[in-house]
């Protein structure tokens, strides 16, 4: 008998352990799903963790109203595909209700606004454990995240006062109104995610793969001409591109790519010299601590 365990097996079992631990110790978990690769990997692992039972918690999508239509199509099929309950919390509704105000100006986005929609949805549904697909290798403030990350009654994160986390003994003790963000794939890298997508044959929204699109260049990023307002000086051209991350269509950049299969994407990711967020996210370019600032307020 060969007792060797590959790194993907070890990471998968670690994530399953975390999910089961949450289901056993919390009252009302929910799994956040953006329709991106990380959250779809999470849904896949959650299915395994509780098989042959139905997924024992709902999936929630924070709909900014600015998502790529391909991602919304994909989201709408999740409920049937995984036989699970899908909740949609809408940023537009939060705006209509007067909970938040649309940003104005050239760098306006709905990225920060989703924090209110997310925290409102957590409060209204009394969720006490919120699964997210964040990974420590993505961004420096995320490198300091716990698997079980405490949020106070205002939904805020205090990075300097985190509970130490030892072995696989997670402390999820909390009072009513407080909640935890849970990150089962903390230890995965972008490449691990792609290798797992390949091994498990996980279906992803088509725009992760190279496709022809009308784009223009701004600050070194390729933005989709159909989704982002552009000036007459910004020249529009057609190119083969794909998305490495799926944020809002107006702030997420595409990368030039000919990778139409998972295998080609893995080759591309193995040899790239830019991080996925650095290459494609305008929201993290505002400052060195942009992500930390959003996270403290309650961001994903």
């Amino acid at each position, binding site marked *: 008998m060969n007792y060797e365990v590959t790194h*993907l097996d070890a990471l998968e*079992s670690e994530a399953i352990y975390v999910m089961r631990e949450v289901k056993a110790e919390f009252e009302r978990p929910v799994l956040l799903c953006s329709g991106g690769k990380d959250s779809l990997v999470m849904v896949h692992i959650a299915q395994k963790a509780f098989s042959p039972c139905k997924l024992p918690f709902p999936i929630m999508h924070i709909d900014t109203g600015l998502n790529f239509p391909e991602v919304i199509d994909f989201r709408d099929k999740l409920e049937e595909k995984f036989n699970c309950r899908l909740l949609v919390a809408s940023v537009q509704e939060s705006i209509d209700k007067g909970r938040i105000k649309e940003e104005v100006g050239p760098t306006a986005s709905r990225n920060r606004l989703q924090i209110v929609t997310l925290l409102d949805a957590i409060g209204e549904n009394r969720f006490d454990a919120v699964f997210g697909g964040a990974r420590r290798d993505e961004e420096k403030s995320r490198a300091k995240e716990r698997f079980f990350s405490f949020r106070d009654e205002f939904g805020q994160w205090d990075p300097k006062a985190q509970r130490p986390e*030892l072995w696989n003994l997670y402390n999820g003790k909390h009072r009513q109104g407080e909640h935890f963000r849970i990150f089962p794939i*903390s230890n995965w890298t972008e490449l691990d995610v792609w290798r797992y997508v390949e091994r498990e044959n996980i279906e992803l929204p088509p725009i992760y793969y190279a496709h022809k699109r009308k784009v223009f260049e701004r600050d070194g990023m390729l933005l989709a001409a159909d989704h982002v307002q552009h000036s007459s000086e910004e020249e529009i051209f057609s190119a083969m591109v794909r998305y490495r991350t799926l944020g809002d269509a107006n702030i997420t950049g595409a990368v030039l790519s000919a990778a139409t299969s998972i295998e080609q994407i893995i080759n591309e990711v193995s040899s790239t010299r*830019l991080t996925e967020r650095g290459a494609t996210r305008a929201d993290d370019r505002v400052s060195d601590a942009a992500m930390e600032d959003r996270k403290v307020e309650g961001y994903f």
Partner: protein
Amino acid sequence: MELLRFATAGSVDDGKSTLIGRLLFDSKSVFEDQIEAVERTSEQMGADYTNLALLTDGLRAEREQGITIDVAYRYFATPKRKFIVADTPGHTQYTRNMVTGASTADLALILVDVRKGITEQTKRHAFISTLLGIPHLVLCINKMDLVGYEKEAFDSIRSEFADFAAKLQIHDLVVIPISALHGDNVVDRSLNMQWYGGASLLHHLEEVHIGSDRNLIDPRFPIQYVLRPQRDDYHDYRGYAGTVASGSFRIGDEVLILPSGFSSTIVEINGPQGPLQEAYPPLSVAMRFSEEYDISRGDMICRSGNQPKVAQGVDAMICWFTPDSFLESKRKLVIKHSTNSTRCLVEELIYRLDINTLHREELVDRLTMNEIGRVKLRTMKPLMFDAYKENRSTGAFILIDENTHDTVGAGMILGSTD
């Protein structure tokens, strides 16, 4: 590809950040935009060199104060292995961070500046590594370039460390002369130290045998969650989910269920990839048994001929984490051990350990933050455990404050006091 988790400890002065930076850089795990950001920030801070510590110091407060607050996790891979690095800071909260980072590590990497030799800090690192049961220790004697790559300087530190290490339970020690700055013996063998016959650091990290570190002898399967589909096609189905803590379990094995003491036989094992004949650590599986007694979360599956201790009296080493309160006798706490949580009472603080001298101070009445001591605990319900040195999964626990809900301590079980 196998996974190796290692913890590094030491201060910036020892060249730890330079070393990690080099490992990340040479394995192409640092990206251009990260390097550019670090260069920009170094320049803003007025540094005349690119400060690779900024790669790991992610929080605003850390960059502003130039200190590392918390354990940072870093990832890199070579074609042979994927590595998870727990980088623990040497400044504030030192012991707490090192203990945290070490708890999941297969290997500890300790850096020594060849000009300074073995310091108190080196001894603390080595002691905590052994206390946390890390199977492999690598001592990197750094800045060899500053002593002309001389063998004598290396030999004298190596033998000094060997004298100290004799007092600790170190099973596997490798000592490597390096220059993190120039890359000597980091990725490739150095041409400057022909007298050194061993492997480069990266080669050692890729090749060190970790397959035998898992306990594959003592079968322990803590029940984490019970799967009950409540559907017609799965009528009466009970799947007992958990992660194998140690040993192996095969279909057909007769097993003992604790604490009830009933016996049953494994009839099915489902792993993440489907049905399995055998389950072993660290796989997360679900098992079914021939007789279904009332089995629930917190129960432990083992073999009648190989059982953990079942006791309410626990003898353990504790590391105390919080500045807000003390560990003292008569204190009540919540203990989380394996998939069990219960309350416990501190019966006695036997001694406090001076981690610089390893001296046992017996006339003390409390442990304060970052102190380590030996205690007797009494738990409200019995725990099923093994000694930590035999089983890191069933020998570890955390202590939680009932009021603040903070994790206030970590424990390693020595045995039972019953």
